[in-house]
């Protein structure tokens, strides 16, 4: 069995884990980041990609509002490549709570969240899709963030400073001696090999899986799991982030994501973070609710749905999961008799950096490291790891640099064979169970209107050509990939997407008989919330 030694082991490569790896690297503390699946496989991928101005929390959670405002400013300044600084609106329509509307400006002022009242004509001129039933509108500093690029850029800089990372490596048990975790036993999902990790300190950044990881060391964290579903539109509906001006509820927020918009979310308590998927009923609820704000949502074409599970640290019984603080939880497990174990979970994408800072501060105090946090002032360098998630990047690169033999394998999103090859080379040994899935996560393959119907088979053919897969494995991976896309596709099948699905089944089942043959390559035993990165078209 391989044994790895590291000063700090970080478990979970969502935004927080990625931020921690970088924060520690900048302090000169080399760390190893392990992830049971792939970067942003949990809530860091399954969210709106909203850079909160803080305005959403001014009434319910002033502390969270202030944190969002401060962190939003830092990210805009230090990680501009990950941000679209679109600005946002809060709007109310006829029938919405007038008290909430009336209190909003003063609540924003109390949290120092910038907010400017707009006359209704101006608001509609700014966003023509807004309802004619508009009764109030305010401008705020919301923006959009590409969570996948954000995590990959954090990881890339950390790796350049001596940090390291293993994907598809799952922690399975921990050995505790004299109040310390001395060993974490892991399994490599790709090879099935067991790996032993010895670290001075273990940081649990496993998000919705944090309670499960903590339990490996015998520590208990009370957590609630709240599943939220979102819809992606075919076209961009609005220039800015549009929020419903009311007490936070379902289907309140529309966030731009490059050429598309993302609409959501719902909030459903689930028993476990595993196996979440959006449903027809939730897609309908989101549309039925949000169309009051933006009537076009009733007629527009959708690309797919996706879902994520919010990790909420339990503060006792609560009816509405939104009432549980969106603030984060930093747990020093010294209280559980584990001196070298820290959990950081909960929180929001917008505050990921602050969460990493606080957790790293505690870790460094335990390690006796005096170096201060530098992520508050140090720019986040743009990396090449995250670049192919950006809508529009693939086509530009293809036009700029294609060689005669470079084919476009994904026509919806113009992803070329050259791009696929660069992703294959980067993924290397950490491809996980499915190279096709790893490619899907790092590029826009499968994310356009065909939802993988054409490009899935073409990329599979290319993987065979390159000798990356053999025998039936490629067909099995193709089936897995198709089933993963299907989770998000099946809730929005009417109109044109239903025609696409009809065509896909005609090709895959009618022409190629793929319903026969090998079963999908992975059993559905893995968290499964379709990792969505900057999912959009």
């Amino acid at each position, binding site marked *: 069995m391989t044994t790895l030694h590291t000063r700090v082991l970080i478990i979970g490569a969502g935004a927080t884990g990625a931020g921690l790896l970088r924060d520690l690297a900048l302090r000169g503390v080399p760390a190893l980041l392990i992830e049971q699946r792939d970067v942003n496989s949990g809530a860091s991928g399954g969210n709106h990609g909203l850079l909160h101005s803080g305005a959403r929390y001014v009434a319910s959670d002033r502390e969270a509002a202030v944190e969002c405002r401060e962190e939003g400013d830092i990210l805009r300044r230090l990680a501009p490549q990950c941000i679209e600084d679109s600005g946002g609106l809060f709007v109310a329509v006829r029938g919405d709570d007038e008290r909430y509307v009336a209190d909003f400006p003063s609540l924003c002022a109390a949290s120092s969240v910038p907010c400017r009242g707009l006359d209704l004509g101006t608001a509609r001129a700014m966003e023509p899709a807004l309802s004619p039933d508009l009764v109030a509108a305010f401008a705020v500093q919301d923006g959009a963030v590409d969570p996948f690029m954000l995590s990959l850029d954090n990881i890339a800089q950390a790796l350049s400073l001596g940090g390291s990372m293993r994907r598809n490596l799952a922690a399975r048990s921990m050995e505790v001696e004299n109040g310390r975790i001395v060993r974490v036993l892991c399994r490599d999902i790709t090879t099935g090999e067991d790996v032993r990790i010895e670290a001075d300190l273990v940081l649990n950044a496993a998000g919705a899986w944090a309670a499960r990881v903590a339990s490996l060391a015998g520590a208990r964290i009370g957590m609630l799991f709240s599943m939220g579903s979102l819809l992606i539109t075919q076209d961009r509906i609005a220039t800015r982030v549009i929020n419903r001006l009311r007490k936070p509820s379902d289907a309140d927020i529309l966030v731009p994501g490059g050429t598309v918009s993302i609409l959501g979310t719902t909030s459903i308590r689930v028993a476990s973070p595993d196996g979440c998927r959006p449903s027809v009923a939730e897609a309908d609820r989101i549309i039925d609710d949000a169309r009051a704000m933006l009537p076009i949502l009733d007629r527009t074409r959708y690309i797919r749905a996706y879902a994520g599970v919010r990790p909420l640290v339990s503060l006792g019984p609560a009816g509405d999961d939104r009432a549980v603080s969106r603030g984060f939880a930093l747990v020093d497990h010294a209280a559980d008799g584990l001196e070298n174990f820290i959990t950081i979970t909960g929180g929001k994408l917008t505050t990921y950096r602050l969460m990493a800072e606080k957790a790293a501060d505690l870790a460094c105090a335990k390690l006796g490291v005096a170096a201060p946090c530098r992520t508050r002032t140090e720019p986040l360098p743009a990396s090449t790891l995250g670049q192919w998630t950006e809508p529009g990047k693939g086509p530009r690169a293809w036009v700029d640099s294609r060689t005669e033999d470079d*084919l476009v394998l994904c026509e919806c999103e113009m992803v070329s064979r050259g791009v696929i090859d660069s992703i294959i080379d980067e993924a290397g040994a950490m491809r996980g169970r499915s190279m096709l899935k790893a490619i899907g996560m790092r590029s826009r393959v499968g994310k356009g209107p065909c939802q993988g119907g054409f490009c899935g088979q073409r990329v599979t053919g290319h993987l065979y050509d390159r000798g990356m897969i053999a025998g039936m494995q490629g067909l099995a991976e193709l089936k897995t990939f198709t089933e993963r896309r299907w989770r998000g596709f099946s809730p929005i099948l009417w109109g044109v997407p239903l025609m696409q699905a009809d065509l896909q089944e005609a090709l895959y*089942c009618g022409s190629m008989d793929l319903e026969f043959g090998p079963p999908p390559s992975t059993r559905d035993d893995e968290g499964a919330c379709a990792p969505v990165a900057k999912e959009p078209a």
Partner: protein
Amino acid sequence: MKTYDVMVIGSGFAGMAASLFAAKRGLSVVQAGGTGGIDFSTGFIDLMAVHPVAEQRVWEDPFAALAALRKDLPLHPYAHVADDEIGAALEEFTAFLGNNGLCYTGRPGRNTLALTSAGTVKPTYLLPCSAWGGVEALEAKAPTLLVDFHGLKGISARQIAEVRADWPGLRTARVRFPGMGGELYPEHMAWSMADQARRTELAEAVRPLLGNARFVGFPAIFGMTDTMAVVGHMEELLGRRVFEIPTLPPSIAGPRLRAAFDRGLPALGVRTYTQKLVSAAEVSGEMFHFTAGSGSTAVRIAARGAVLAGGRFFGKGLKADRHAVREAVFDLPVRQPEKREDWHRAEFFDPRGHEINQAGLETDAALRPLGADGQPFHPRLHAAGAILAHQDWMRMKCGAGLAIATACKAVRELSQNL
């Protein structure tokens, strides 16, 4: 305005077959429809192969499968068409294609396993003659060279060889297609193969790779209108049996079918309006009036009878909003699951197929779609093909066969009523 005997709505297999059969029976025929599923066809004509789909039972004898199907699923549209009529319809249909440059073959009363571009094999009934060498090579597991091309996506010879581990004699090679670079499209390649010099160049590129191969397989690119002549010439040049494998769309199989119909149907007197969806229909007394196309290019058509053959969602014969499935031309009642939750299964590849695939038009035994009162909507309105309810052509492997058989039946019933 001219009054036609029959208006055929749709230009997929069912629409083409209905026009053909009606014209052959001496009726005056007009046809309109958008480009539908036929452009995405493999060119294989499936008759019936899998039943029950949940058990994935594959039948070698399609007529035995039909008998079992009619017994188990008496509402399936095949229950309305007799074996004799199915056989005669297929014969007439493939004879027409043969006369228009598209040769078909198969084994009477037996399904054949055909090689697909994914490397899988699928049971089908009739195949383009240009694919038949692949059937023989596969059955004999004969030493075979599979050739693919730099720049042609949608088919990987290596994938086929990897998936067909049961065929150790299969070797692969990737060559440059003579005279073209960059990204290649089957249709361009097919047109260029009309040039005999191109075939010679291609043969020269392949000849050094032949080794012990008895068969040589290529992606389907051998001509648009004279495929068997090109295949024959390539066999002569290579001294080996040569066959084609249909590629993933955009492939040449669909355009070949369309080209055959574009040549053959007008010659039979059929008036065709291609790329024009039927946007409106009125029934007044004895007559149908249709509007095909939209805007300034819309045409009005009068007919005494009609065959609805617009296919499903991709063909635009059916359309769906968030709440319900509707029939696109007459807004006929559509048999369908009660709620959208029930349209699709949790897994795409669920062997049972998706519930919505069984949605469609219910008909009487003469294939006349039923109106809201459960009676035929109109005495001379019939339906054919995938728009019919109670079938799942993708899972049962009965797409083209069902289209051709029901078109034949619909036209015969209609002709008796005109």
